């Protein structure tokens, strides 16, 4: 079997999609974009291959969903532990020597938390749920584990530890060590899976073509002929997911794109935000950081509000200070946050208007399409002006660009 690989290297996350020759999605991978773009692309690709491997295992051995989930949990936990070891070593290097005994205690506490999660063996465990959650990455989980452990012990200054962790994480994240399934120690895997591993290599698809796209595409380790603009890739991916797509709105980390497709699915025109990432994922990320709220908690929190406090949408940094001023003035946090999400939607609608409007079916893609407060607000605005419009949001919306890239790679075969 042959397959193609599409990589979408965005400013926040790097996505990979593995596609069969027949155009079927075999696997998806995602990781946070780190300083070394080559490592980002490599990890996302390995994640996609692992995802495809798990699906293949299912078909090979007619494994139950429970066994497959357990296999994935084991694999991800094993990978997580290996990264933690590297993080710990890096942490010892970057922090003051006097902190070493305290760090060793923390590492043991973190291990214990993971052991407890592992022992739950399928029962609810917060840390294992986080490791399995594709929208959370190693850095988010490891940082929280260490800081929680330090808080409980009260042994290390939290700020010093956070600074050390930031440095150590940068070093850890730029190292490639995620392994393919057949390289994983057999003891990590459920017994029903072990005999299937040798067969996996024989049926695993060979990657016969690849295309890179996204914000950092020029820095991908691909030749120029294997690079495509994200405009084309998002257009193509959206059309694949929804054959009636005519207008595509993509809100990513630093770009908002309004793309118009013609009746043949070709990009007819596009508009992108210029000069400022206001209204993009970074805008939400920046405010989340400022307020000490997790990015994925931002949307649900905003959805609890009954009214939205107006927030400007022209500048990310100004919005940050504006949000603080509003909170100091006594406005409710959730209502300010809803205002912030409304600002994102208003900016996107302005870009859509400049690109010529919305035709027939609007496909919303990119990481921000997973934010429920943005989606809810967008629906409210569309209901006012475009009552007959179809809004499509695919569960795989974040992979649209990588999917488009893999589709372009198919054309090169």
């Amino acid at each position, binding site marked *: 079997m042959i397959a193609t690989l599409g990589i979408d290297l965005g400013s926040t996350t790097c996505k990979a999609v593995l596609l069969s020759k027949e155009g079927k999605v075999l696997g998806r991978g995602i990781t946070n974009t780190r300083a070394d773009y080559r490592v980002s692309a490599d990890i996302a690709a390995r994640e996609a291959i692992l995802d495809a491997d798990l699906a293949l295992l299912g078909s090979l051995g007619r494994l139950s969903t429970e066994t497959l989930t357990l296999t994935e949990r084991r694999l991800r936990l094993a990978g997580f532990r290996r990264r933690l070891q590297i993080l710990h070593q890096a942490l010892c290097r970057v922090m003051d020597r006097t902190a070493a005994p305290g760090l060793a205690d923390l590492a043991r506490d973190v291990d214990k938390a993971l052991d407890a999660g592992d022992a739950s063996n399928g029962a609810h465990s917060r840390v294992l749920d986080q490791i399995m959650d594709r929208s959370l990455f190693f850095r988010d989980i490891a940082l929280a584990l260490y800081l929680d452990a330090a808080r409980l012990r009260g042994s290390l200054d939290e700020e010093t530890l956070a600074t050390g962790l930031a440095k150590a994480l940068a070093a850890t994240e730029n190292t490639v060590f995620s392994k393919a399934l057949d390289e994983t120690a057999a003891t990590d895997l459920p017994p029903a899976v072990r005999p299937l591993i040798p067969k996996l290599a024989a049926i695993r698809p060979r990657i016969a073509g690849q295309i890179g796209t996204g914000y950092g595409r020029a820095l991908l380790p691909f030749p120029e002929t294997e690079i495509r603009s994200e405009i084309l890739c998002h257009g193509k991916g959206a059309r694949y997911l929804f054959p009636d797509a005519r207008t595509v709105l993509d809100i990513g980390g630093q770009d908002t794109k309004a793309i118009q497709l013609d009746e043949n699915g070709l990009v007819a*025109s596009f508009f992108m935000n210029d000069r400022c990432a206001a209204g993009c994922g970074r805008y939400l990320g920046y405010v989340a950081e400022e307020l000490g709220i997790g990015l994925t908690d931002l949307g649900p929190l905003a959805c609890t509000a009954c009214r939205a406090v107006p927030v400007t949408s022209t500048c990310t940094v100004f919005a940050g200070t504006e949000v603080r001023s509003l909170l100091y003035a006594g406005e409710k946090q959730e209502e300010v946050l809803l205002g912030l999400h409304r600002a994102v939607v208003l900016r996107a609608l302005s870009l859509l208007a400049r690109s010529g409007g919305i035709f027939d079916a609007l496909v919303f893609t990119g990481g921000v399409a997973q934010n429920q407060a943005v989606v809810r607000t967008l629906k409210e605005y569309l209901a006012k002006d475009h009552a007959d419009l179809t809004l499509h949001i695919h569960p795989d919306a974040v992979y649209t660009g990588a999917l488009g890239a893999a589709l372009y790679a198919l054309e090169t075969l």
Partner: protein
Amino acid sequence: MDSIPMKSPSAKHFQKQILDDYFDRLASARDRGQKVVYTFVPGNLTELILSFDLLPVYPEVNALQSALRGDSGNFVKRAEMAGHSEDVCSYVKCDIGMMLLGNTGPAGKPLPPPDLLLLSYTGCFTFMKWFENLAALYDCPIALLHVPYQAEGGVTPAMTRYVVRQLEEEIIPAMARVSGRPYDPEKIRAMCALAAQSESLFVRCLESAQHVPSPIDSYFGGVFYMFPIFTAFRGTLEAVKYYRLLLEEIEKRIRENRTAFTLEGDLPEERYRIVVEGPPNWTHFWELWKLFYRRGAVVVAGSYVRVGGIYDNGFRHDPDHPLESFARYCMGCYTNLSVPARVDLLTRFMEDYKADGLVVHSVKSCNSFGAGQLLILKEVEKRTAKPCGFIESDLVDPQYFSRAHIKNRLDAYFQMIDERRAYHDRNPGH
């Protein structure tokens, strides 16, 4: 004016020669007692100015040349120190900053202060505010020529009479007062005849880009071709000689089937033929050009090389009706055209020049170009079914040029063209 002897057979060298001579004359104007008129490029009245033996200075050209030399950032900052806001046109700020910092011209020689500000209002309100500022700074008189906008898409006899009357009653008397000379109808007639010759030659140069491959880049290369006709030389023998030389060189390129000239020699392969709407960015002019030609893109036509006046529709200065032709010329300049007329012109260029698409360059500073650009883009796209792209920067304020963003958009744009070609190859008949 005496004709300059031609020392070099190359159009480029001849242009340099006449420009050097022009800046020398400007530098020594005060000492020689020659009076100077500052004026604008769109719808300029160069023949009239020269006929009074006045020397024209074009602040827009000084600003763009300052940007090409890398000086505009300082000039803009200096004007902002003097109180001009960030949102003021950067041409204005560059010009005022240059003046406040000693008024050294593009050739490194001091520019004389104006004896008259000739403000031909052709669709740009900023022009009025610009010269109001200069009038205060230089303590100098202004002559205002109000040019009616072609709102209905054409020029009526009443509009022409309105402009001619202003020329007769205000502009010509103002020039006579400043120069101390009377209006010379014979000289004007002779200059209009020379202008018409230059204009016909200039049109032939521009139309050479209809050839495939195009022997010239009509935007990045074209801005150098347009200087003589839109600045101090139209109506002189020098301009005729320059365009004759240029046309000969271009026709030779066509005979040799050569592609457009770029900064790195001839374009290796003409892959995309583009029409561009909007003025160039001058602070990163060469970088922007590279972003086009390194992808094999040549600009075959555009609005900017017509910014001073449009000759494609048959207009020529008329020796038999000079004042009427000045009026029609002013009213016909690109930024004085209605948006539908601009759409018609660009659509025609797309067809006549066998273009693959349109790129709109929107500059923060210029409302005369910017207003209507989105509509123009959509209309041209609708009428031609060719991809249209949009990039943004500024004229001469360097902080508004983002190479990464422009490259990103141009990458996507050229790939859109590739994708359409591939689709049509796979689906012939579509």
